[in-house]
């Protein structure tokens, strides 16, 4: 039986109970932070909307009725229609899928890459560190959007390339953070102890060094999500990300730009979506940081 007392027990009887207890404490601390909960709600809503887009969207996201073009918000079209008569609400709903995909792919590619490079550089030090960090610094010194732009220009426009470009632009931050974290404990005695047991370097980095950097990376990735969404939208806006007729939010703003003064809703509605989702990730990331921050953990 899973009870509160069982989860909070100081003396777990099995590995399973110990792990569940740790997760339960994290979840409980997170729940006590109302803003983080708001953020989590927004993220969950994004997930649900993306999953059930075909059922939620009242119209097709790509086919419009030209007769209905540029209609203001109304009972039939809650967010109005665009210049091709497509329902903006439906496009925003389908756009959630694209945004989610971009965010997930970027996180899956760049976070592990940055973590690996940062921990290897920090743990080995010396010339390995200098080479890897030199590389990181070159990437870091360029603004993310400019860098992504350069890569898309090289790879050609399209959503897959946009994802790759953003991921390439995003990892250096994670590498820096992970390295800084490793430097604070690379000379610790617990690492001496594990070396003395004959562990291979791969094992030390993967099982002993990385776990100590993961929470700061997760926090940073969550906080970065807003920036990633904005970069993706920026690429879309410049016509280098998702290509028409895909309902990508940034591209939608870009098209709506021409009508911004007379038909404000065309650009504003996807703009709202971007702001709300970004805010959701920021709030959740902040809450996560409070919970995972190692300084809050007692050593005594």
């Amino acid at each position, binding site marked *: 039986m899973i009870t509160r007392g069982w989860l909070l027990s100081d003396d777990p009887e099995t590995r399973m109970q*110990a792990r569940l207890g740790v997760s339960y404490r994290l979840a409980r601390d997170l729940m006590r932070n109302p803003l983080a909960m708001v953020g989590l709600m927004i993220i969950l809503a994004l997930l649900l909307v993306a999953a059930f887009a075909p059922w939620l969207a009242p119209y097709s996201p790509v086919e419009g009725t030209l007769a209905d073009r540029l209609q203001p918000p109304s009972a039939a079209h809650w967010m109005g229609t665009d210049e091709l008569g497509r329902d903006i609400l439906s496009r925003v709903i389908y756009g959630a899928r694209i945004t989610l995909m971009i965010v997930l792919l970027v996180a899956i590619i760049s976070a592990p890459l940055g973590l690996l490079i940062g921990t290897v550089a920090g743990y080995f030090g010396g010339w390995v560190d200098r080479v890897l960090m030199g590389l990181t610094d070159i990437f870091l010194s360029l603004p993310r959007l400019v860098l992504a732009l350069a890569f898309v220009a090289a790879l050609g426009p399209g959503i897959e390339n946009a994802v790759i470009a953003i991921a390439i632009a995003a990892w250096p931050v994670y590498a820096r953070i992970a390295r800084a974290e490793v430097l604070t404990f690379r000379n610790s005695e617990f690492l001496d102890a594990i070396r*003395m047991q*004959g562990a291979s370097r791969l094992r030390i980095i993967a099982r002993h060094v990385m776990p*100590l950097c993961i929470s700061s990376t997760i926090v940073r990735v969550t906080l970065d999500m807003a920036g990633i969404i904005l970069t993706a939208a920026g690429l879309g806006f410049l016509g280098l990300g998702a290509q028409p007729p895909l309902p990508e939010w940034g591209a939608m703003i870009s098209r709506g730009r021409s009508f911004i003064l007379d038909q404000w809703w065309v650009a504003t509605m996807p703009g709202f979506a971007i702001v709300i989702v970004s805010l959701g990730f920021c709030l959740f990331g902040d809450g996560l940081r409070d919970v995972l921050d190692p300084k809050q953990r007692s050593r005594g």
Partner: protein
Amino acid sequence: MIHVKDLSVSFSDVRVLHDVSFDVATGESFALVGESGSGKSTILKALAGQLPAFTGTLRIGEDNDTDRPFSARDRARQVQMVFQDPYGSLHPRRTIDDTLNEPLLIHGLPDRDSKVIAMLDAVGLPRRFRFRLPHQLSGGQRQRVAIARALMLNPPVLLLDEPTSALDVSVQAEILNLLKSLREEKNLTFLLVTHDLPVVSFLCDRLAILHAGRIVETANTEALRSGQLSSSYGQELFQRSVYG
């Protein structure tokens, strides 16, 4: 069991150890005492294979072939170390169980569960602590975990770097008693660094006194107990220990 001959160590041109030599027999408990910064921990690090560069001859355990250095894995089964700081020597995010399992996993040994439980019993930790994290343990309990970890691979030699100096006296007594019985049970060889002469008197058979990177005297514990150390630095340590 431990053979150190003409060990010299330099860090960026500064020589911190000068031709240190001593031998420790199987089952013996040998103490290194001396001035802070005189190179005691450095000797242990060299024996533990944690120093990149030194000159001289080191032999540990069943290794007779000086030309062929130990691989890290072989060495791990011959010698293990217990560190001074019980707060810094345990991984903060791994449970006691993870920590004790790790050496067995690295060396691919079977029966891990039963070995971990047997070791918890041997060092006097309640079995219910098995899945706790280090921050849920007191300093003395953590030091027991560190000792348990060092013994998981059954090495014949244990290097102890001030294992009780961060602990209060009641816990120190428990840990010293534990070390003494483990040594009797498993016929372990101890090389103990400490600055506390009474600890030497309780736990060790012989001692070497270091000063500025050199051994100034090797004596047996009887000489220490009766205050008959021959070097002037040894006498100073003795006087200060007894009269403050």
